[in-house]
């Protein structure tokens, strides 16, 4: 049937999930909050890619660094201005503030640009490549390659640079890190910024493939959670693997059964996985409180 193609585009889907999840992983691992605004930020980034193309006619792959940078700035502001202000307080505040932020961001897009689908094109994006009996568009291949590269860079950043090591230190032991002279608040903001930049990269890679509308980021946001939970917190490669798995599973289910039910199916998988394996596949035991 079309199973090999379903798997192939499932991998492309998973590659996008991997990037969004990587951002979520970073924020959750470091700042220790669940960022409900993840999907909405992805939507904003997608519109950003679209705006760049509308304004300057540029290919989304060229504007990728700019989008990532803008998103990083936005992330920094969100952390410093909003989330940082409720960090010491009740958990409810953290939960609801990112939720409220998600509502604002998503619906701002609706207000500003309406509900119609927008699209972004890349010059060679729609060309179809065939290999190993499978046909994939160039855009999909670039998405997979770009995602893999980014994940690799992220790993190197976290494990081979001073800034990355500071981030990991704060993730594991904020108190000791503070004593060691690390400015924890700034690390939080940096982690959020990097996480949001990753979303910017994801948006640039997925823009030529998916329609852009105010709800575009939603399912990716939820999927990111599933990926992070399944792949284990704190594990860059675990999350990436889980992302690919989920992407393939979802796409295959959609092809073999039904598109609508595929989303419900993955949510069900999430609930079950959450209950059965909160520590994920590769990660340490997730703190559930």
């Amino acid at each position, binding site marked *: 049937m079309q199973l090999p193609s379903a798997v192939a585009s499932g991998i492309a889907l998973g590659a996008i999930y991997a990037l969004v999840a990587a951002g979520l992983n970073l924020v959750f691992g470091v700042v220790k909050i669940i960022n409900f605004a993840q999907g909405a930020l992805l939507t904003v980034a997608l519109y950003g890619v679209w705006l760049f193309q509308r304004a300057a006619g540029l290919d989304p792959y060229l504007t990728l660094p700019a989008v990532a940078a803008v998103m990083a700035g936005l992330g920094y502001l969100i952390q410093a201005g909003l989330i940082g202000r409720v960090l010491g307080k009740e958990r409810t505040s953290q939960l609801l503030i990112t939720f409220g932020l998600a509502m604002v961001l998503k619906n701002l897009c609706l*207000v500003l640009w309406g509900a119609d689908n927008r699209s972004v094109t890349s010059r060679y994006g729609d060309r179809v490549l065939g290999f190993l009996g499978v046909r994939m568009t160039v855009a999909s291949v670039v998405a997979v390659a770009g995602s893999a590269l980014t994940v690799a860079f992220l790993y190197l950043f976290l494990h081979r640079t001073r800034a990355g090591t500071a981030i990991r230190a704060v993730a594991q032991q904020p108190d000791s890190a503070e004593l060691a002279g690390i400015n924890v608040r700034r690390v939080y903001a940096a982690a959020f910024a990097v996480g949001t930049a990753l979303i910017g990269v994801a948006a640039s890679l997925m823009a030529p493939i998916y329609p852009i509308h105010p709800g575009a980021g939603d399912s990716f946001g*939820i999927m990111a959670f599933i990926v992070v939970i399944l792949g284990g917190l704190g594990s860059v490669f675990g999350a990436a693997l889980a992302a690919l798995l989920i992407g393939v599973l979802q796409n295959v289910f959609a092809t073999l059964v039904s598109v609508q039910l595929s989303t419900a199916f993955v949510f069900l998988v999430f609930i079950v996985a959450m209950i059965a394996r909160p520590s994920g596949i590769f990660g340490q035991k997730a703190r559930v409180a």
Partner: protein
Amino acid sequence: MTAGPARAAPPPSSPASPAAVRPLSLRGRGLSEAGPRVIGPALLLLAAVAALPLLPGIRFYYLQVVILVFWFAVLGTSWSIIGGYGGMHSIGHATFVGVGAYTSTLLYVDFHISPWLGMPAGMALAALVAVVIGYPCFRFGIRGDYFALVTVALGQVGFEAANGAANITKGAQGVPLPYAGNAPFAFQFANRSVYFYVVMALWLVVVAVAYRVRRSGFGFKLIALRDDEVAAERGGIDVSRHKLLALALSAAIAAAAGTFYAQFFLFIDPGAVFGLTLSVQIVLMAVLGGMNSYLGATVGAALLVPLSQWLTTRLSGVPGLDLVIYGAILVALMLYMPFGILGLLRRSPHWRRVIGW
């Protein structure tokens, strides 16, 4: 036989103080402590509201706004039982509303069973769903943000299922209820004001339930486990069981509200009763008013529903703006007033006892 302490040495430095003489009681006097200066006007207000439908020439639009205030107050109060008392912040409460609405509606439309019977059926089913989801969650220690995530996912599952299982639920097009004129046994009234009194009665019952729960041993145990689950377990409290009971009760109430919605609007669809928007609105009502109080959601609804109605009419040309404002209110609340309006009273022991904080 008790292995209690023998007569102890007198405590270090404590003259006989009023606290030593007043009886220790879990309950206090509660609402009656508010005194006649507060209770009097409150009762007058209640009577005035109850008299609204009787005002000659009053436009039904205003009655409908008040109906929605009561409706959201019911939902928000049901959320307060789990979110406020129990610390379980569910952002998927609409799931139970949807279960209630669809159960009674489908039983009526497909099997001609009166919604008065369909309502308890929906309530029971919602309670069952609550237990089925809650049991594994609580058994495996899913709490806090993780629990919130699971409820969001549950809400999505409910929404997608309602959309997708079209052969049962009629799918995205929704289910219209056939207009039956004046058919009290079928939960339909030609005189729309009757719905006003039905929902007001529902609200009174739910607030009374929340009040009683708050002042019961069960309620205090919920608050204890909200404060510190480990300490509650240590104290012999079966935390999972208490959470499940609270969740089931809350779900049943939400389902009842779902049935009312169906009967009042005579049309339901997945977006209206299962949607994430509804779940967020429910949370917002409770949080704005003060989620720990049995009156919190009522205060929140009384403020937010008229505001959102006004916004909808003013901004009808701009879809999404109302949600931007909801979101902004939520963010602002969390930054500046996370305990909501009634939460402002929490410093006063007297008012805490009155509002049940």
